[in-house]
């Protein structure tokens, strides 16, 4: 039986088809929400850093890496 036949069989027996549970940790909706909030906070912090370096580069001019010790 080819892969195509197998796929057709699966489609014909759609009602009986149940996807196998994926291995690994399954997050609850609350854990997903918490992870999303943390990810957004990390993204915002990185964004702030990028903007900060950009603005300070403009403020200090081309000599940004030249400083007396």
């Amino acid at each position: 039986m080819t892969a195509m036949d197998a796929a057709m069989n699966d489609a014909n027996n759609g009602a009986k088809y149940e996807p196998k549970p994926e291995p690994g940790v399954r997050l609850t909706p609350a854990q997903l929400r918490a992870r999303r909030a943390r990810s957004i906070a990390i993204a915002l912090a990185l964004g702030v850093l990028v903007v900060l370096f950009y603005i300070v580069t403009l403020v200090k001019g081309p000599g940004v890496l030249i400083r007396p010790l």
Partner: protein
Amino acid sequence: MSVTLAHAEPSLAGVGDYLELMKPRVMSLVVFTAFVGLVIAPGRIHPVIAATALLCIAVGAGAAGTLNMWYDADIDARMARTAARPIPAGRIAPGEALAFGLTLATGSVVVLGLLVNVAAAALLALTIAFYVVVYTMWLKRTTPQNIVIGGAAGALPPAIGWAAATGSLAVEPLVLFLIIFFWTPPHFWALSLFRCQDYARAGIPMLPVVAGEAQTRWQILLYSLILAPLGAAPWLLGYAGALYGVVALAAGAAMIVLALRLRGEGAGETTNRHSASKRLFSFSILYLFLLFAMLLVDRAAAGLLGHIA
């Protein structure tokens, strides 16, 4: 061969829990005193560079607070005041807090060094290391002088602010350092008087636990007697105007009066026995805020007068 990996329970920690790890109230006082150090420093600093310095100092303070909570999670769990913190309450795993704290510490020092100057970054690194290693890991659990020596970490932010503006240090920020350094013992010992049971349960050798309440009251009075003239030093040394001097002397006198009342409270065992220590604790916060706010007012007034003249 199959390998079974042990998974920790996926985290439910929210952004607020991580902010709580950074001790936002302590952070606000650190930023305020650093801001004063930055403003009273001579010369001009670009507002963007000043804001960057304050941001780094705030994050550095947050890193120190986070690493403190990571190391002290065991004793935090035994004290009523701290049992609900994110790590003892189980909302953040210790490893997560350690990684968060180290990231913030490294990031704040590196960014301050790159965008502001190396002297300020070195002082920030010293402050974080002193608070975490010297105070938290060493002194806090071993000696009743923990907050006296450890107080140096909390006293450094005005010097970091000054260094951010000038790239060096001078006598003025060292006077501010000394004011906070001598303010710390009366402030924390007043707290430890009415939290004595908590500290004893956690096994922390705070002065009232080890030497008794009478000795603590006496030490508070001694430090207040040193603090009052020291608070007026910026005026006496000519760094601040008469208005600052009057406020500093009045606030210093109030601090001594409250310390005397606290010492008197020890003799009579009243039902409301810790009211004097609570009053001194609250006033000590106002005292430090007043002094540093007056330095700002003084500098603003001097700038305004200079502008008019």
